[in-house]
């Protein structure tokens, strides 16, 4: 019995209204190992983590921690079992200093009754930072700390709460190489202390560097699990892809027309030196990983972000929108990533949501023309095949797919010149996706230039006429979407040029 199991999952299942997110997952993590967990979006990693964090309840299956059957009903339960989660958005109180954050879940040491014993707090913090061999400023609010230092504080806090199993979700995004080295040193320290670290990341190089074993998930099951020494990047990628899904995409017709938009050496804090062109009737896919600057590129074109240097020309004229209002006036529209948070006013009616982007079209002297609203909304609704009998109903009564169609209808009520889509099929069930893709294709055929950002590479490969690959805000490659298979797609995303 050399190796002991820290956590074992047996046949854990979970479905959300018909969609099977986890189809019986068997997994085990050992004490004193760093374990990589990889898989494409939708593979089931996040559902798995939510189950262990007590946010989601599994439908079936067993969870054992150090051999004991456990039921994780809440995040408090998870903490009590020694499970801790280091997220990208760390749950730190930004105006508390590191010490205060580390001991947030405890009683601070006291003196003279109610007064906090700062000396003792400092001593206790010192013990933890020594054990982990980390250092960060103790006396300033954590908002002044760098990203990696904040991650350290979060890890120290988990350590103080006697965490045994550390889940780290993309901890190295936004870290420089030097910072990443520091983080990895801390992870190795945790392993030496006999802790278990589960390292979840899309960055396969990092996973291969830091982990001892790797588990690959796909379509809600574990498809591979072996020691890191036996794995290569190519093997990981082929496991992640598996058999290619016979994807349901409308036939690609070349409707590419004249040059519409030309970006030249576009630069701001998140994108660097991006040059590309966009034509009428073309679908341009943006390939890249989460955090590569995909969304930020759209935001720059939409006037949410400015650009420090470089230029954009729309039909030969300089284009530099200062806010989305100006972009919309120029016929550039966006379907944002977070439908509920950014796309819809949930409490309001379908009419109100559809017309929100083009109020001046449905009014005279600022007064609404209800007849025009009715006519134009149902036209836009028809264009996107929105199924709803009554547009007076609140959008919150619609399904995810139909809600997305409302956002689409809003953006295409006036036929735009450029339609930008950020994760267009997110939260849309598989059945409704084909319809969405067909709508996108139809819009392109009618002359609209479309830019698609998606984490689902099949979506980009199935939809796009051309693909612009970016990494860390820089262009890797821009090429016609012919002869690119899933493997080479991922290679481009990871920054290889051929």
């Amino acid at each position, binding site marked *: 019995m050399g190796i002991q199991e820290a956590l074992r999952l047996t046949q854990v299942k979970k479905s959300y209204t018909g969609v099977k997110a986890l189809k019986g997952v068997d997994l085990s993590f050992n004490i004193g190992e760093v374990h990589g967990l990889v898989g494409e979006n939708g593979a089931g990693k996040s559902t798995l983590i939510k189950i262990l964090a007590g946010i989601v309840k599994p439908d079936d299956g067993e969870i054992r921690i150090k051999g004991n059957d456990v039921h994780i009903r809440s995040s408090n339960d998870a903490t009590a079992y020694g499970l801790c989660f280091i997220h990208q958005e760390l749950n730190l109180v930004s105006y508390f200093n590191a010490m205060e954050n580390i001991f947030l879940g405890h009683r601070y040491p006291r003196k003279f009754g109610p007064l906090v014993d700062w000396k003792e707090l400092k001593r206790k913090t010192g013990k933890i930072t020594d054990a982990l061999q980390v250092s960060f400023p103790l006396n300033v609010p954590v908002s002044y700390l760098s990203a990696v230092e904040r991650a350290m504080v979060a890890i120290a806090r988990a350590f103080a709460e006697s965490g045994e199993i550390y889940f780290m979700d993309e901890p190295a995004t936004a870290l420089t190489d030097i910072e990443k080295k520091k983080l990895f040193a801390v992870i190795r320290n945790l392993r030496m202390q006999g802790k278990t670290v589960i390292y979840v990341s899309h960055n396969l190089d990092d996973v291969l560097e830091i982990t001892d074993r790797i588990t690959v998930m796909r379509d809600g099951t574990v498809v591979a699990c072996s020691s890191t020494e036996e794995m290569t990047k190519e093997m990981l990628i082929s496991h992640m892809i598996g058999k290619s899904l016979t994807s349901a995409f409308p036939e690609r017709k070349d409707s590419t027309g004249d040059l519409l938009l030309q970006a030249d050496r576009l630069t701001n804090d998140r994108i660097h030196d991006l040059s590309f062109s966009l034509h009428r009737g073309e679908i341009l896919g943006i390939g890249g990983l989460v955090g590569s600057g995909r969304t930020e590129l759209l935001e720059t074109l939409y006037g949410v972000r400015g650009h420090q240097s470089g230029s954009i020309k729309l039909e030969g004229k300089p284009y530099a929108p200062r806010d989305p209002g100006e972009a919309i006036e120029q016929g550039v529209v966006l379907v944002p990533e977070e439908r509920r948070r950014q*796309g819809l006013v949930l409490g309001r009616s379908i009419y109100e949501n559809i017309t929100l982007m083009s109020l001046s079209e449905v009014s005279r002297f600022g007064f609404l023309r209800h007849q025009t609203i009715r006519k134009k909304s149902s036209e836009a609704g028809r264009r996107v095949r929105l199924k709803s009998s009554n547009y007076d109903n609140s959008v919150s009564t619609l399904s995810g797919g139909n809600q997305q169609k409302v956002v689409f209808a809003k953006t295409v009520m006036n036929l735009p010149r450029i339609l930008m889509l950020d994760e267009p099929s997110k939260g849309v069930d598989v059945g409704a996706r084909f319809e969405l893709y067909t709508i996108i294709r139809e819009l392109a055929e009618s002359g609209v230039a479309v830019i698609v950002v998606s984490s689902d590479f099949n979506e980009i490969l199935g939809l796009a006429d051309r693909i612009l690959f970016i990494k860390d805000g820089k262009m890797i490659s821009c090429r016609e979407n012919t002869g690119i298979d899933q493997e080479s797609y991922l290679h481009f995303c990871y920054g290889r040029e051929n």
Partner: protein
Amino acid sequence: MGEKIDMKQNRQISRQQSDGQAEKNRTAGIFIRSWGTLLGFMLLLAVFSLLRPDVFPSGRNFRNIIEQVATLAIVASGVTVVMVTGDFDLSVGAIASLVGIIAALLMKAGASIFVSMLAAVAVGTTAGLINGLLIAYGGLSAFVGTLATMTTFSGTALLISKGTTIFGLPDTFAYLGQGAILFIPVSVFVMGISLVLMYLLLEQTTFGRRLYAIGGNEEAAFLSGIRTRRVRFISFGISGFFASLGGLVLTSRLFSAHPQAGSPFMLNAAAAVFLGMTAFKEGEANIWGTLLGVLIMGVMGNGLNILGINTYVQSILTGLIIVMAVLLSSLAKKKA
């Protein structure tokens, strides 16, 4: 963020699975939510009528009530606009007082009534726009911003009036607060116009749509091309304008200007809008709700007065009723 959405989705799923009985409860819930406040108002009328059948339910008394609430209704209709976007305006009382003082001083200095009123309203509207500047563009929270300007405006009113009440206004000025057109008091007339204007603005114009969109989801509104800061800025100006109008009517009614005459508006207007948010629309400020809120406050004050209950107790009861109304509507919302 992700967790929150998940929980919401779960709740929605369990909602869909609920059976017919729950559906019935839900319908009942929506009914109570939309009409409960109105029913409560009727109940209030019934109770006072039963307790004092000789005095309370008379045309004369009702006319009296409406005249009493006219100024509050004017001010509250402006506050409604601000609260539709989810902001707040504590400074309306101070603006009303300041406007009254300025108009009175100008009249005393010999300016014509019309010019005095116009100048005073201009100052009050500018004061509202200053709020808008601080809050929409300066990034102050509406609460802190208007709390600060309230103090400043109030101080200004005290300073220029030297802290005293200004008497001796021209006789014709009394017409605004005390005169009548075809038996309808002018103040009630102004109230009616304010309410109708506000109805048109909120429900029939693109500006109203923008206000409600910002109140519902500011980020989605911004990404839909709405200049959210400009809209919020203007909404504070509108609030300042109606506070000024209310201040003028009040000054005329009292036929004197006191540097703190408008103070009660601060809380009463907000209370009326809050009460109104529990009526007709779900949790959103709306103009007919605000009118209902104003009437509830007016009837409460009047009825308790007739019953001879002292004003301190009246304050306590008013507070309790607001808490109850808002609590009931939020409970009904949770259940549904």
